[in-house]
């Protein structure tokens, strides 16, 4: 029987579920011309959730529902940033959705349900909660990708995403069942991550456990979009409506980090010497494939998709270091990537109009002449993604490289840095197109007059500079989550 205390611990999640259901109802009873109100309501809902999270933060880690749900600093940080990036996505999405007549309750409620999925996932204390959160996030995401259901490309992307996602979920579930089985051989079977932590010490079927671990890593790799489980990323990024892509590139990555941390460290921490090498291989493959294939892309969304793959490679450098330092670095990286990704897609959304999708790199030609401020914001995002100081992305890279060197994986750090040089090219190419090329004939590249979008986007991109100049507190916060 859940006690009041359990409910209080999960208050932000319960509140969001209630709010999402209420929004759905409101949407059903609203006149079409009142729909835009939903936008502001949803943003308010998320902001209140952030408030509840921060204000209700327990002094130390607590669990609810018999260890199913963990509320600690790690979860807190990831949730706050997931909610924050979702607010950004809402703000950036509004003009896009209005232009395409997609502004409807479904978008907002599905997004909020996806966020609830993220919140469950990063707070998971049990294999079941991991799966529950993951599925809630994934199913909402599949539907969101197909939001524009009459168009071909989004439908194709949604089907691909769904089929591959289902496969990956199956793998994960299969792995979980093996781990559960292994925990039952020589002890009481358990799904609880805290109990699974030392299963290696007593299980009579260590091979089974290892197999289970491998299958779970496949699931994690898929969710992160790390090579060789990256196939869905480019198609989904390109096919999905840009606001949804933005969400998948930001909040979803925070969730993937949270899931990897819960499963690997909380659950399988004893096997770290096994999974460290697996993650290192995933990291190298992601860095190589992501950076090399991104060079030849002409579509900006696809390029950013491959860039995501390479960034997940860097995140994996931190995870592979398998220590508090490494986790702190990887979480810092995930937050950093979420902010950079949202900013880059935000500029694309700001430049998109009815009848004009700004998604080819060549669409940005001469942006500096048409709209210098947007060009500058994109420049910040690109230099940050490329990892050039003094921008935020540079420090995130330094942290994961340091973590890798700290964990005696100097070779991995060198691989990482070599691919950073290769990756530099395609980010510089975008800047080249914006700054050094003349605008195309009859180009009507114009930033949206939407005030909220402009202000929030500016703050978002400038935060990359501000955090690049002073990142100490954020790092301190991330480190405190892992007891440093």
């Amino acid at each position, binding site marked *: 029987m859940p006690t009041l205390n359990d409910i209080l611990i999960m208050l932000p999640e319960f509140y969001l579920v209630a709010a999402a259901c209420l929004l759905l109802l409101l949407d059903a009873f609203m006149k079409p011309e009142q729909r835009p109100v939903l936008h502001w309501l949803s943003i308010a809902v998320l902001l209140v959730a952030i408030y509840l999270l921060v204000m209700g933060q327990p002094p130390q880690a607590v669990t609810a529902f018999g260890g199913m749900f963990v509320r600690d600093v790690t979860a807190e940080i990831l949730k706050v940033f997931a909610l924050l990036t979702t607010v950004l996505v809402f703000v950036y999405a509004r003009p896009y959705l209005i232009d395409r007549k997609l502004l409807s309750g479904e978008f907002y409620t599905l997004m909020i349900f996806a966020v609830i999925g993220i919140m469950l996932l990063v707070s998971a204390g049990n294999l079941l909660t991991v799966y529950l959160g993951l599925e809630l996030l994934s199913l909402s995401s599949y539907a969101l990708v197909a939001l524009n259901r009459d168009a071909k490309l989004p439908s194709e992307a949604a089907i691909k995403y769904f089929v591959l996602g289902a496969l990956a979920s199956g793998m994960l579930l299969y792995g979980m069942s093996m781990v559960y089985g292994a925990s039952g051989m020589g002890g009481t079977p358990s799904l609880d991550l805290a109990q699974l932590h030392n299963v290696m010490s007593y299980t009579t079927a260590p091979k089974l456990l290892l197999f289970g671990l491998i299958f779970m890593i496949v699931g994690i790799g898929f969710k992160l979009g790390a090579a060789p489980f990256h196939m869905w990323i480019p198609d989904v990024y390109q096919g999905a409506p840009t606001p949804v892509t933005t969400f998948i590139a930001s909040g979803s990555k925070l969730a993937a980090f949270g899931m990897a941390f819960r499963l690997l460290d909380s659950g399988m921490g004893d096997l770290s010497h096994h999974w460290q090498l697996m993650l290192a291989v995933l990291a190298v493959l992601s860095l190589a494939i992501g950076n090399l294939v991104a060079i030849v892309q002409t579509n900006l969304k696809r390029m950013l998709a491959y860039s995501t793959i390479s960034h997940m490679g860097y995140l994996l450098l931190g995870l592979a270091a398998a220590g508090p330092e490494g986790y702190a670095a990887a979480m810092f990286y995930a937050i950093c990537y979420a902010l950079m990704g949202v900013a880059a897609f935000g500029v694309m959304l700001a430049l998109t109009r009815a009848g004009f999708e700004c998604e080819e790199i060549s669409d940005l030609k001469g942006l*500096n002449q048409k709209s*210098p401020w947007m060009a500058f914001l994109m420049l910040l995002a690109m*230099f940050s993604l490329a990892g*050039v*100081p*003094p921008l935020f992305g*540079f420090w995130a890279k*330094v942290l994961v*490289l*340091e973590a890798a*060197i*700290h964990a005696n994986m*100097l070779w991995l*750090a*060198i691989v990482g*840095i*070599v691919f*950073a*040089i290769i990756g*530099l*090219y395609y980010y*510089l190419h975008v*800047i*080249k197109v914006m*700054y*050094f090329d003349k605008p195309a004939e009859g180009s009507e590249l114009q930033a949206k007059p939407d005030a909220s979008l402009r202000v929030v986007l500016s703050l978002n991109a400038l935060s990359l500079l501000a955090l690049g100049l*002073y*990142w*100490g507190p954020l*790092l*301190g916060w991330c*480190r405190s989550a892992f007891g*440093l």
Partner: protein
Amino acid sequence: MFNHLLSLLIWLPVAGAIPALLAGSTRPNLARWLSLLVAVLTFAVSLFLLVQYRPDAGGMQLTESYLWIASWGVHYSLAADGISVALILMTTFVGILVIAGAWEVIQDKPHQYMAAMLMLEGLLIGVFCATDALLFYALFEAILIPMFILIGIWGGPRRVYATLKFFIYTFFGSVFMLIALLYLYQKAHTFDLATLAALPLTLQEQTWVFFAFLIAFAIKVPMVPVHTWLPDAHVEAPTGGSVVLAAVMLKVGTYGMLRFILPIVPDAGAHYAWLIIVLSLIAIVYIGYVALVQEDMKKLVAYSSVAHMGFVTLGIFIAFLLVRESGNTDMALLGMQGAMVQMISHGFVSGAMFTCIGVMYDRMHTRQIKDYGGVINVMPWFGFFYVLFAMANCGLPGTSGFVGEFMVILASFAANPWIALFAAFTLIIGAAYTLWLVKRVLWGDITNPHVAEMKEINGRETFVLVSFAAAVLALGIWPQPLVHLMDSSVSQLVQQLAIHKI
């Protein structure tokens, strides 16, 4: 203000770039005047360095240190010694001249040009006074951004190729330095340069770190064989970009050697000094010959820059040889001082040469030597300055070019007469390519009708050239103040060379 003099010097131009940028394309003149004001103010503030810095005391002065990133122990720490002060003064001086030099030349988005220049100036000053390795690295890399934009937007026809090559080439070098710094951080748990200098390292470790540092700084200097980005970048850059690139940015490479290679990995440095000396001699002799056959004026001066920077690296590493092998500290000091004087002198001379080429380019829109001839007939005053800088470029006594080269050659002679022989080749080759350039451009009859239409330099250009000329002559005739400014810092560096860290 005096407690935060260095911070002020960094942030004044960086912050000053913002109002200049906001002045916008609608009021270009406001942006120009604002930028000039900021540049002049920065120069004025930098003059206080001369008041505040006490050359006789030596060591790092004007120290500022604040905890920046607590969990990593990274400090925002700045300090300056004589070398830093000299380089900062040169930077702020050149800063005014490039802003003035671009006045009406840059018609396309002048506010962005000026803002990028000011940013660049602030970041360069930061590089010259950072005493935390991570802060140094961040600034060292950040200077690429404004330079990338400067070459890319206002450069010549192949600007995109040149600027991408410049960025990726230099970025390539510096990332290995980052790995080396992180490695050192694992051992020392700090990025403080003074602590790293005292960190004991085995020869094997030193060797790896040495090469990681070397590749970063050698590309920036640039040394043979990683100099190939420089001619492209110089040829395509706008005049102001070339001036800053040659006058200040190249010095970042040699300055980095002084701050990183010398104190942190002295044994590896001594072990591989021969390599640097050989590469420097190749730069001096071979690149001199390469400069001789250039048909593009900017390329010629670019190659001559590589050759002249070869003197700086030669002077620094000949000191290793002298201290470690023969214990000849006096001569080592001379070589090192020569290298420092050469750094400053090359800053003024190459800056002036590029400005001259820019003046001609603005009138003719060509840099090919064959398009000119007889310019002296229509631009006598310009010709006067051009010849003066050409003389300085080939190291004529009485100009600044002579002092540094002479000191380095003397020191090399003490180490090994053969090294001195090759180094002295520059006197012939340098004279050959520079004088031949002057002959083909200035003297003779006017063959190209466009040359006849060239107008004499205006007041603004005269101001820029006179300023450069004053600096070149002052350093040439009376180098003592500069030598005195850097003397105690240089002798400290030389003393450090003798310390074994193994």
